[in-house]
């Protein structure tokens, strides 16, 4: 058991997966000698050599496209895109090959690969470095989408993603990278993709979040308990696609009220999808409209004002109180 940051935990997962399976290789911009701009891949080159850990030219489309080719050949590439804002450069290869090759080849070429990328705001970055567009991938048939919220689940989910027979988009909340440490067990751990976690049990309302906004969400839950005697259940989605509809529905069936939190733009975002599913499966239990506390349908702001833009615990708590007050 060791106390680790998320960066260290992800690094451990890569070490573990590469040790367990020599088909796993790691590629991307500045991931080898430099160990990644966030140091997630630090030390891998020395340990596993240049054939399995290699820098690529500066071309995201080429990175994903060649990674898919390597997966066709039977390797298990873990490709890093330096910031999720640059996954747009690889959109065609993601949609047309990574997400489709299993289907196009009628199962002959499954694409067991992971595209890792740091996402989200909160680190005073320049423009295009704070995007949160997981909904694009959730809308894309054939992909799985995973977003951890802390060191331990990050490590377990990354191991699971690498083992997964399908292509996984793995979004890393960079605001959490070094934000805190957590106990990470020594033995290899995985978490099943497609399963949400009840991060806090409660009876009055269901708060759903994932990734970096888990922290203000849990903070809001604690504040509400302390200051307002409100007992909120908090769900950490972890897996965006497939989504653990059952856990969500069970919770809201119990609480009757729900607030959903994410950083990405609101329209056609993940919260909309959750609302649609709750409408389908828990309609008769809903006591109030489900509130969305999300990024706005604007461009992510330049960093001087990002803290106003990002969902904070106060905004979340207010949405909870308003939802509880609704009748």
């Amino acid at each position, binding site marked *: 058991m060791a106390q680790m940051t998320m960066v260290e935990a992800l690094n451990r997962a890569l070490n573990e997966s590469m040790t367990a399976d020599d088909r796993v*290789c790691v590629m991307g911009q500045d991931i080898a000698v430099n160990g990644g701009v966030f140091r997630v891949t630090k030390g891998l080159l020395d340990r596993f050599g240049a*054939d*399995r850990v*290699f820098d*690529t*030219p500066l*071309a995201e*489309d*080429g990175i*994903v*496209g*060649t*990674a*898919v*080719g*390597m*997966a*066709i*050949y*039977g*390797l298990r590439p873990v490709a890093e895109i330096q910031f999720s804002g640059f996954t747009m450069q690889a959109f*065609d*290869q993601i949609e*047309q*090959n990574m997400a489709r*090759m*299993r*289907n*196009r*080849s*009628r*199962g*002959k*070429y*499954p694409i067991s690969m992971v595209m890792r990328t740091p996402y989200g705001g909160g680190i005073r970055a320049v423009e295009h470095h704070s995007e949160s567009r997981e909904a694009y991938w959730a809308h894309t*048939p*054939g992909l*799985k989408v995973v977003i951890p919220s802390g060191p331990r689940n990050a490590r377990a989910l990354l191991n699971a993603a690498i083992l997964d*027979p*399908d292509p996984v988009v793995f979004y890393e909340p960079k605001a959490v990278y070094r934000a805190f440490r957590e106990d990470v067990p020594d033995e290899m751990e995985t978490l099943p993709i*497609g399963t949400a976690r009840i991060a806090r049990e409660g009876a009055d309302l269901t708060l759903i979040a994932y990734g970096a906004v888990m922290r203000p969400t849990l903070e809001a839950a604690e504040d509400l308990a302390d200051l307002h005697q409100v007992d909120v259940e908090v769900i950490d989605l972890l897996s965006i696609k*497939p*989504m653990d*509809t*059952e856990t969500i529905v069970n919770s809201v069936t119990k609480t009757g009220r729900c607030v959903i939190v994410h950083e990405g733009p609101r329209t056609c975002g993940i919260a909309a999808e959750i609302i649609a599913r709750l409408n389908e499966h828990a309609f008769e239990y809903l006591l109030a409209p489900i509130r969305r506390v999300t990024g706005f349908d604007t461009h992510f702001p330049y960093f001087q004002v990002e803290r106003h833009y990002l969902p904070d615990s106060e905004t979340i708590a207010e949405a909870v109180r308003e939802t509880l007050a609704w009748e």
Partner: protein
Amino acid sequence: MPSQTIQTSAVRGTPDPTSSSRAVPPARIDLGEIDDLRVLDENGEVNEALDPGLPDDELLRVYRAMVLTRKFDIRMLNMQRQGEMGTFAPGFGQEATQIGQVYPLAQRDWYSPSYRSFGAQIWRGWPMDQLFLLWDGFFEGFAPPPDVNDLPFSIVIGSHVPLAVGIAMGIRKKGVEDAVVVCNFGDGASSQGIVSESMNFAAVFKAPCVFVVENNGWAISTKLEQQSGVTELARRGPAFGVPSVRVDGNDILGMIAASTRAVEHARAGHGPYLIEAVTYRMGVHTTADDPKVYRSDDEVRAWEGKCPIRRMERHLTERGLLDAETIETIGTACEQEVLAARESFRKRAIARPEEIFDFVYEELPPELAAQRDEYLRRLGRA
């Protein structure tokens, strides 16, 4: 003998050190040269200096493959016009380019084809009934046969090129086999950024990947001059560190010479190679296209004289390997093969709508299983 382009290094203008003059011409970087190959000219005459020297049975084998390709093509066009086939992209006129590019490949090698490649696909071992299925909108058409290392052909222009490079990178990284990958695309595709990215990746990683750009002069209605700032697309390779060769794509022996050179280069571990095959699309772009809108009959007629099949016929006749009768026999046999495939296609042409959920993921997640149920209910109603 691979092209020397890449090895050419900068030669700086070296001023005479004894002279006091400080006015010297600029240094120049020599960009090198590339070969422009033709073995069999339009009259069926061979340039022996470049002849790949195929034995007689091989010469007949490639001739027959070209004839089969054309028979298949004509039959499919026929079926399409009669409503028995979906929209497809004929390869009429590009048979030598097609067969030549896969000729040197072994079974362990890989092929990532574009959509106008059924000639090469048949050569590589795709059953013709399956290709009929594919173009007629049946799922199973796309499934590569178990023992064929090919990708399903690509509809999205250029999108399959990095896959070829990735496979080649995998081959090189594993280092346990000496397989190579061939990937073809059109003059239009050469404009796609991903094609440039792919060439660069291949050069950087010395990936054993052979790129074949089939320069047939047109991308639907867009002619080469509107497509590209250069008319010789072989120029693209050296700019990315990929040795290149240009070849008459209607000359099957030239094609084989070029692809053999390229495949040997890649197989020996020297990295990628680019072949520009200069050819012409004699027919429609697809069966949904009307070329009369954008190109002249004269242009098409000028290319009729360059037919790759006639040219080879003349050469083989001169060599005593063919005569009017054997030509007829081969043609009929190929036609029979195609008709037999059509029969098989007709038997297999059964749509299975429930299959749309089968290969989205290895296992159906619950949310998709629910959608599948919904869909099956809908099908049950129909």
